[in-house]
Every structure is written in structure tokens, then in C-alpha cells.
């Protein structure tokens, strides 16, 4: 007989099921939400509290090769933010790139129960999975980098579409990934062969390939949709951080031609102005396009002031940013045939024009969005700031007075380039917060059992004490329930929990190995037969179905 739990008297926010703050009971049996449970089981009285599904982070960097390099390179980031062991939980360190255990526990202390690592090179999949296994409590998965893959480029440029599609499926399955990720498509070619150059537009030819970023993006968007991945191609556009990149971003969105596509940390891609000059805000342009095109979804990638760590598969970007910080440290790591990454310790400051503008653009994107289901919350942790700053971001969205106070503190010149000085009235409701932090991301990820509290849903539930200070309210939930178990009760950890790996396993024609093997034998430094990741690395994983 499975353990049961009943949550009573709480105000429930469950946008997917159209429940907006009604007081009602939630019944849990085992790891699932059920219609009812027999009387007499364990009960939580949520009188005066807010009940929401567990938070879902659609885009963060928490595990894998580049994350671990970023940990290693910043001992000072950990030294003054330690995470002691408890009777139930392992110790670790925090900072902008916490250790694996601390990452899991800290997401839990915010009421988040699912998080997706957004960029892992295929060759590092095994590594990412090993780290995710040491990331407790939350369910987790990762997106595999295929946007600069040289074999895929070859197949695509030679018009071998069937093989291309099968190779994409093979790679996703071999890595146990959740979806495919595209980062600055085409950039690795000039980066590695032309004195660290970068791609400058979606229509520029990629090296000697008969390809452009637009063709690569379109082909991978189609592949993801043809394979019926629960979450579409997850795209980091070209020209991140460059003035005027809004044009590139709009062209990339248009390249989807109506097909489903997710544009990530869109704040970084919403710059107006002229290349080489100071950027200005083009948030409204992006906002209008997204509202008008339901096939497109975004996460914001909000910048929050303070310490951050730039860590990205967009190596040319990190190379550029290393000149914008006093820190001596710059990490670059090229990955054979597949990818690369760059890391720069960074911090966003209120008095710096560009930093403040980015902060403003992010807020604009939230406040202008007509459909919050397709403009969900992220800081591109830890690029825009740590996930630990989500509560503060929520307060900025929910509390107009607080927001205006903050706006007055920052670089005035930058604020004038946004609409924020017009005292925008919009304040996010609890329901809207539930959408951008849970229901929305879960729906975009195609996680049917997450992001809501209906019968059959995973019993991942967060219970907050209502408070006028929304930052306070969202930084310390009273209860966090994962898979039906109360992990946090009265703000304290009561037990440890593993959480599941989430991945997909699209079907492919086994003959594709005839195409892959020779390429591996020629250009890889490890054996084809040692490349694919075995189940040993994802015990108890949940395989999300693909296909229409």
C-alpha cells in the first residue's frame, strides 16, 4: 500500500488545469497525484499558504564538462559560500557554480523540482549524466549540442537528408539527451580554422560547406519535429551580445517557417543599435514577433546584478568577453568534430550601461509579453546570474513599487533606451508566476506529468507561506514535496532523494552506423563502440516518448 499524503486548506495555483487560487485539497498516493486518499493518512494543513506545482527550469547550466571547468577555475567563488552537510544531506559549496549536491539541494530550497542542463557536447554526455546522478532531489536532463557537428554538416551539405535525420536521432539516443541544442550555428568552423573568427549572420557561408546558419537551423528544427521530440530544437542564435543582433534573431525565428522552435535566453539576442556602437533595446520587436508567431517559444535569460559566470558553447563570445573583465582567467575548450566552449568569470554592475540595458531588456520582455506561456523565466544560470536570484526576479515582476525603486538605482542612460521609465503598470499575478516558472516550462518541454496538480501528475509540489515580500516568499517554501515525499518540512530538509534522469530515445535506421563508423574511425580520438552511453549511466531513468 503506497504512502498517502493530503494537502488541505491551501490556495492552489494550477494554470494548466485552470485553477487560480481556489482553496482545495490535493491528494497524493505514492509518487502521483490522485483523486482521493483514504482518511487518516498523513496531512499537511496549508492554511494561509500557496500551493503550486514544483518549479521547472527549462534552461540552466548545472552539469557536464564546461560546468566542471567553471567550478574548478573559481575556488574563490566557493570559499565564502559553503553548504554544510546535515544528517540527511551531503555537503558542498555554492557561488555561481555550485557543486553538484548543492545544486540539487538549493533548487529544492527554492521549490524547484525539475531542471534541464542546456548544453552538453555529445562526447561529454557520459560526464553530464555522472554529474546529474550526483545532483539530488530534482528530476533532470540535458540538451545535446548538434549545431556545429561536422558530420551532420557534411551530410546536410551533400543533401543526404535521410542519413542526416537518422544521424540526429542516433546522436540524441546515444547520448540519452532530452532534445537537441543549437549554439551559434556555424561558428566553430571559423573559430577553429580562421584565427578565432566568428560567424556574423544567418546567411553567411560556413567555411567550405554549402551551408549557412539558416540552413543548419531549419534542418535541425525539422529533424526535431519529424522525430517528434517532446521539446523542439533549443536555439542559441548567432551574434549573441552584439549590437543590432535583433535582426539575426528575427531572421532565425523566421527560418523556422512556422515549425515549432525554442529561442533561448532571448534577452541576449534583443539588442538594437549598430554593430560596434552601444546597444539599445529591441525588446518590443522580439515581443511582437513572438506574440504573432505561436510556433515560437522563448525563455528570457534575465540578467541579475552581481557575480555571474559566463559559460557557453559559444566560444567566440567568451573570447570576446575576456577583454571586458579585469579577471585574468579565460577558459576555452575545443571538442573534436562537435563543439567547443568558453568560460569567463563575470559580474553585472548597476553603473555599467550595457549591463543595465540587459537587465532592462529582460524585464521588458517579461512585461510586454502577451502570452507568458511562451516567454518563460530563466537567467541562463549562471550566465545572467545564479538561479538563486529567481525570487528577487519574481519580486521585480510582481511588485511595481519595488521595481520602480530598483530602476531608479541603475544606469539612467541605459534605462532611457527602454520603456521601463514610463512606470509600466503590469504586475505579474501568482497565477502568471506559476505559468512562467512551472506550467509554461513543463508544457514547452512536453512533460505531461509535470507543471500541474491534476490527477496523474507527478507529486512534485511546493507550498509557500504568503508574504507581501515576494522575494522572501519565493526564497523559502515551507514545504517541498518530490515524488510524494516531503523533502522539506517547515523549511528544513527531512530526508534525501535522488530524482530521475529524463531523456528521449528516438528510433533510427541501424544502417546509419555504416555512415557514422568510418567518420569516427577517421576523425575521432576514441572508438565508435565506446562512444554511445550505456544504461549504466542513467539507472531508473524516465524515457519520455517521442513521435506524433
Amino acid at each position, binding site marked *: 500500500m503506497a504512502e498517502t499524503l493530503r494537502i488541505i486548506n491551501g490556495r492552489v495555483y494550477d494554470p494548466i488545469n485552470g485553477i487560480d487560487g481556489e482553496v482545495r485539497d490535493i491528494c497524493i498516493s505514492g509518487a502521483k497525484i490522485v483523486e482521493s486518499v483514504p482518511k487518516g493518512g498523513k496531512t499537511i494543513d496549508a492554511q494561509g499558504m500557496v500551493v503550486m506545482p514544483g518549479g521547472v527550469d527549462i534552461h540552466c547550466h548545472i552539469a557536464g564538462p564546461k560546468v566542471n571547468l567553471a567550478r574548478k*577555475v573559481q575556488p574563490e567563488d566557493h570559499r565564502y559560500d559553503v553548504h554544510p552537510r546535515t544528517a540527511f544531506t551531503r555537503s558542498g559549496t555554492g557561488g555561481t557554480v555550485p557543486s553538484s549536491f548543492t545544486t540539487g539541494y538549493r533548487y529544492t530550497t527554492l521549490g524547484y523540482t525539475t531542471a534541464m542542463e542546456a548544453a552538453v557536447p555529445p562526447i561529454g554526455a557520459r560526464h553530464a549524466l555522472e554529474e546529474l546522478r550526483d545532483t539530488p532531489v530534482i528530476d533532470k536532463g540535458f540538451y545535446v549540442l548538434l549545431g556545429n557537428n561536422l558530420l551532420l554538416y557534411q551530410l546536410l551539405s551533400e543533401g543526404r537528408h535521410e542519413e542526416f535525420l537518422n544521424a540526429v536521432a542516433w546522436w540524441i539516443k546515444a547520448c540519452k539527451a532530452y532534445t537537441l541544442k543549437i549554439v551559434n550555428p556555424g561558428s566553430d568552423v571559423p573559430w577553429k580554422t580562421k584565427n578565432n573568427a566568428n560567424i556574423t549572420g544567418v546567411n553567411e557561408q560556413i567555411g567550405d560547406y554549402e551551408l549557412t546558419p539558416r540552413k543548419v537551423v531549419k534542418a535541425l528544427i525539422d529533424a526535431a519535429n519529424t522525430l517528434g521530440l517532446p521539446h523542439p530544437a533549443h536555439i542559441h542564435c548567432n551574434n549573441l551580445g552584439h549590437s543590432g543582433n535583433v535582426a539575426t534573431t528575427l531572421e532565425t525565428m523566421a527560418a523556422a517557417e512556422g515549425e515549432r522552435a525554442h529561442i533561448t535566453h532571448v534577452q541576449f539576442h534583443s539588442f538594437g543599435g549598430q554593430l560596434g556602437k552601444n546597444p539599445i533595446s529591441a525588446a518590443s520587436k522580439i515581443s511582437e514577433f513572438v506574440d504573432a508567431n505561436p510556433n515560437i517559444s522563448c525563455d528570457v535569460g534575465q540578467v541579475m546584478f552581481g557575480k555571474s559566470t559566463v559559460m557557453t558553447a559559444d566560444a567566440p563570445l567568451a573570447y570576446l568577453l575576456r577583454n571586458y573583465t579585469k579577471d585574468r582567467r579565460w577558459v576555452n575548450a575545443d571538442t573534436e568534430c562537435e563543439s567547443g566552449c568558453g568560460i569567463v568569470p563575470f559580474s553585472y554592475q548597476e553603473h555599467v550601461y550595457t549591463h543595465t540595458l540587459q537587465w532592462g531588456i529582460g524585464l521588458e520582455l517579461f512585461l510586454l509579453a502577451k502570452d507568458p506561456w511562451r516567454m518563460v523565466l530563466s537567467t541562463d544560470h549562471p550566465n545572467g546570474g545564479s538561479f538563486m536570484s529567481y525570487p528577487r526576479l519574481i519580486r521585480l515582476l510582481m511588485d511595481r513599487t519595488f521595481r520602480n525603486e530598483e530602476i531608479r538605482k541603475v544606469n539612467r542612460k541605459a534605462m532611457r533606451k527602454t520603456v521601463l521609465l514610463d512606470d509600466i503598470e503590469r504586475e505579474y499575478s501568482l497565477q502568471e508566476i506559476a505559468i512562467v516558472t512551472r506550467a509554461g516550462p513543463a508544457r514547452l518541454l512536453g512533460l505531461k506529468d509535470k507543471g500541474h496538480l491534476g490527477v496523474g501528475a507527478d507529486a512534485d509540489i511546493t507550498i509557500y507561506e504568503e508574504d507581501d515580500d515576494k522575494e522572501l516568499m519565493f526564497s523559502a517554501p515551507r514545504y517541498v514535496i518530490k515524488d510524494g515525499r516531503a523533502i522539506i518540512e517547515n523549511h528544513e530538509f527531512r530526508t534525501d532523494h535522488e530524482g530521475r534522469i529524463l531523456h528521449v530515445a528516438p528510433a533510427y535506421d541501424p544502417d546509419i552506423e555504416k555512415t557514422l563508423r568510418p567518420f569516427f574511425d577517421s576523425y575521432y580520438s576514441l572508438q565508435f563502440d565506446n562512444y554511445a552511453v550505456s544504461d549504466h549511466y542513467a539507472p531508473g531513468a524516465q524515457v519520455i516518448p517521442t513521435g506524433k
Partner: protein
Amino acid sequence: MGEENLHVVENATCTFCGCVCDDQILTVDRDAKRITKVKNTCALGRAWFTEHAHEERPVALIDGKEASLEDAVETAAQILAEARYPITYGLSDTTCEAQRHAIAISDVIGGTIDTTTSVCHGPSGIAFEGVGESTCTLGEIKNRADLVIFWGGNPAESHPRLFARYAIMPKGMFTPNGRKDRTVVLVDVRKTKSAPVADIFLQVKPGRDFELLWALRALVRGGRISGDIEEITGIPLETLKDLAERMKNCRYGVLLFGMGLTMTRGRHFNSGALLALASDLNDFTHFVAKPVRGHGNVTGADNVVSWQTGFPFGVNFSRGYPRFNPGEFTTVDVLSRGEADAAMIVASDPASNFPGPAIEHLKKIPVIVLDPKETMTSRLAKVAFTTATYGISVPGTVYRMDDVPIPLRTAFDSPYPSDQEVLSAIEARVRDLRAAA
């Protein structure tokens, strides 16, 4: 008789050195528990696989007397749970799966965990924390590198297949003619067996690597350097200028460096100078650097300790959370200063390669050893476990010197438990003991 049971293991992985070649083909006699033939290997790999007929030893010894696995685990757990300053060291010749339990034990008992990194490329790790690193996977060297510089290392003897498989000979995407498409430079204090492969050999005066690297940095960045550079380093200014130009003008350059930098006066600053030089060169072209790591899974140890604690080695848990400070929490220091009151050594032999004062202290405290073979350290151990060898009788994960994780295939079963099995048993027991305390 064994003939019928000859068995072939393809794509096996050699864990003897940091090259972690995963293309080994083993012929195994499973009756005799021996590997009789190895293809695609080097002298070190052949010895690693073929010399590995396991020894007839008890699974465990307590005070040198044969003991049951259970009693040994209990005694080890008692020692660790009661210790005030226990240190765990080694871990570079075992799987990541085992390493995870070793760290868990240190966390639970408030101990210190350190790996052989601290006496290998630990200084490079410290340097990394100062200047970062431009680096790559070995396949990028194979596919792209047209200038390969070996500094303070002797791969011909320490990493024999580094030349043939990854760095000099292989034909790659942009190096279709293999060796012909590369210029190879070797910098060392003596003409080693690696010297013959080099187009250019620079014989630097002993202990002058830093000055040479620093001068190169200045040349590359257009800074001035004094005229007596040849007196100081033994290398003429013209030769240096030529090298600087080659570096700036190559298409994809790589600096592979060894312990000629990390073990000499200057240590972390020597590595730092080289890493900084490689980064500087990216103002002109694409340039990477890579420490040539020694043990089969020392890189895995760095990775696992890093993701679990935030720090790569020399981590102390005595306050209930991880702290990092080389020179304070690194094993040679902790032992030489006589601080540790118990030690667990996993797959390493400090008693044969640590400085005298450290070995003297090891003799004074209860030591727990996990090793497939009898070693000088296991001889002075209070509790000694005989464990199965990773990559031969134990599957799991190891990380190549370029952080690429590679799975292990087994050749034959061992009568002994794996490090992971022993360590997880100890972990379970110390958890109980600490909870009770």
C-alpha cells in the same frame, strides 16, 4: 587446455597512463585468468595487461594477519569514524564509481580527501585557477594541430602512444599527411628518447623554464626582454624569436607539458606561465595547451572531486563543508607536518614515492590500504584490502587526460572485490557509526 577458452575483447581500454587508449584488442585465457596477447598497444600497455596475472593473496589483512572482508571493513570503519584528522589519498588508479564513495566517506567523517594530482599536475591545477586555460580534446590535435610543442616531458617513455595515436603521426581532417603536416618542437633540459621525433629541440638550462616561457610571453606580446636571455636560459634570442613567430603564425598550435614544469622550482608558476602563453597566442591564432596527465584516471579524480566539492584536490571536510588550500590540505603537507591521525590509501603507494618525513608519519598512524598488489604502503598498513584491478577485472568509467570519459571493459573476473565494493561497504558502516556517535 585453456585453448578452447581463448576469448577476445575488442575496444578494451588501457588505464596505465593518461592516454587511456580505448582501441586495445585483448586475447584472454579465462581459465588461467591471463591476458595472453594485446594488439594496438605500447610497451607500457603490454606490461600492464600481460603482467597482470593476479597474485595469490588473502582478500584482507589486519596487522599483517589474514582476515575476513567483513572484519577488515569493520576495523577500517572504526579507525575512520574515530579519527580526528583522517586523510584519504590516491584514487587515480581506480574508477570514478569508486572515487565517488571515497569522497562520500571523507564527507561523512569530516576528513580530508586528496588525489595523486597533488604530486602530479596539482601545480597546473593551481595555475589554472589563476589564468584559466585554452585547451582541447586529443582529437582536435589529431585533426588540426600543425605546430606541436612538448615542454618538460618525455612522452616517448611516459606516454608512448601520444605521438602515434594523437599528436604527431595521425592523419586528421586538416592534417591529411600526418607527420608531414606538423612541425614538432621539444623543450627539455636533456636529450630524452623523445628528442628524435622533434624538428626543433631546445635544450633549456635546468630550472630555467619559467624565464624561457616568460621571455616568450614578452616576445609574443611585443614587450621588451633583456639581452642576456641566452646566458639565463641557454637559448639564443634569435631561436626564441623564431619560435615566437612560428607560434604566432601557425594555424592551430598546441603546447603539451609535463612534470618538468610542475616538479621544479616555481611549480605552479611554471605551469601558469605556459598556460598564459597559450592564451596570449590566441590574439594571433588558435592556440591550446594541455598538461600530459600520468595515471589512468587521475583526470577522473579531478573531475569527481570537483563536481562533488567544488575543488579539484586537497579538500578538507573537518568543518562539515569542503575547503581547499594546497599546501595546507594536500597529502605531503598534512603528513610531513604530522597532522593526520589516520590515513586511507586507495590504489597508490606513497610509502615508495613520498618525501621521507611524510613516510615517517605514515608509519606512526593507522593506515588502510586498497590495492591489487602488495606495496610498500600495504606492508605498513593496519588494514590492507586486496582489490580487483580496474580495466582488467572491474568495469566502470575513467577520464582521459583531456577530460573525455571512457568506459572500461573487463578481460576476466577477479576473486577479489572492487575498490567500489569495499569503499561502499566502509561508507555504509561509517554512516552508522557517525549517526550513533
